[in-house]
């Protein structure tokens, strides 16, 4: 019993009591000012140290992140550029498809002939001559003299052929003459091209009553073109008393400047009448 109240035990009891007292006071919040007083400088120091460490770490690691971001950005830009080029290619394909569908409609509406579709790939180098080059040649069944049309009307005829390309002489060429029929007036006439690509009308009888806007169709005379292909419309007429025929100017129905795709009539047999010409 005497050992129980020994000095050592009493000291331990006091220590335990103080510790429990401190714990209870801390849990109940009585020691918060004391803790604040003690820990605030420590926390401030820790914050300062942490901020400096993060800044130091970022200084060394951020270039790596930037490089990664730049690489990703470059990859994305490349992807965008690729997608944009694909969009352009698709738009071109779409416009090409629209042209081909239009040509197909024309071919379906004129089933009496067989057609070979071709793309215009070039224009004559001499500005005085009206020729275009197409991407189909003798390998595709194209032969000299075959008529060339679009969904709008007559374009010209094949002038020269190689294996995979052909040269088309347009009806606007100065050396090109097309036998036509004026639909309303019901008379035969001829159109002639020019060095500037304009078409003039000639060989119209003086007694024919030709109105502006009268439609010109191929007559089939001469055997160079099939009949009833749209050529153009009469823009104006001139009649002089001392001449045999009326003359006029024609608005071509085909846009020869924007010509991009054509149809070659492959089953039309051109009649060569040159031996009969005096």
């Amino acid at each position: 019993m005497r050992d129980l109240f020994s000095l050592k035990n009493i000291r331990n009891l006091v220590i335990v009591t103080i510790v429990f007292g401190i714990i209870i006071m801390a849990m109940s919040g009585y020691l918060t000012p004391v803790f604040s007083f003690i820990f605030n400088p420590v926390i401030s120091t820790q914050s300062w140290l942490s901020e400096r460490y993060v800044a130091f770490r970022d200084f060394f690691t951020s270039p790596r992140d930037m490089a990664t971001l730049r690489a990703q950005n470059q990859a994305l830009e490349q992807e965008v550029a690729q997608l944009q080029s694909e969009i352009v290619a698709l738009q071109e394909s779409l416009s090409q498809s629209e042209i081909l569908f239009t040509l197909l409609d024309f071919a379906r509406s004129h089933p009496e002939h067989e057609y070979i579709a071709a793309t215009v790939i070039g224009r004559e180098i001499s500005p005085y001559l009206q020729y275009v080059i197409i991407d189909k040649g003798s390998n595709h069944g194209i032969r000299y003299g075959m008529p060339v049309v679009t969904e709008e009307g007559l374009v010209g005829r094949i002038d020269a052929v190689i294996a995979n390309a052909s040269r088309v002489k347009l009806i606007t060429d100065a050396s090109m003459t097309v036998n036509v029929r004026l639909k309303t007036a019901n008379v035969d006439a001829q159109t002639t091209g020019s060095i500037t690509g304009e078409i003039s009308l000639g060989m119209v009888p003086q007694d024919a009553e030709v109105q502006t806007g009268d439609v010109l169709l191929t007559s089939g005379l001469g055997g160079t073109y099939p009949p009833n292909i749209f050529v153009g419309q009469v823009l104006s007429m001139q009649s002089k008393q001392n001449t045999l025929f009326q003359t006029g100017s024609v608005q071509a129905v085909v846009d020869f400047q924007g010509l991009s795709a054509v149809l070659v009539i492959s089953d039309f047999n051109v009649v060569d009448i040159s031996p009969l010409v005096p």
Partner: protein
Amino acid sequence: MIEYLISPVSFLIAIMLQYGIFSRWTLLSGCVDIVLLFIIAFCLHSNAKRLWLIILFFGAIVGTISALPFYIPLAFYFGVFLLTQQLRKRIMQTPLLSMYLSTFISTLAWHGINIAWLFVKRMPFEFSTAFFEILLPSVLLNMLFSFPVHAITQEISRVITPKGAEA
């Protein structure tokens, strides 16, 4: 040697550009002749010994593609080669002036040949129309385009033959 590889490729590109693009760009009815400009610029800057052979070869190519008779572009481009060689000897220090002068003379000559051929073929046309709607716009366009073509060709020549840049 590299000049003999680069020049045919450049000529082919010029021909493709002409037939595919520039022949469709018209001012009134005239258009720029990139092939002609390129040949002039190339003749002014190239030091290839057999340049005349390259010119004849490409004259033959253009003659084959064109609706004009085969020999017209062939002879014309060779004439351009001779003209530029003469100008190069006489106006050696100012290649740009030679370029402008050659372009002007060659364009007039080219259109003169075309008109003469139309006469020979008895094609109906008015000289005033040919002059005002085709010849004059073409001369203007060729003169305008001669500077960039000259600059491009000069750069190409500097790359492939450093000596050629001095001409």
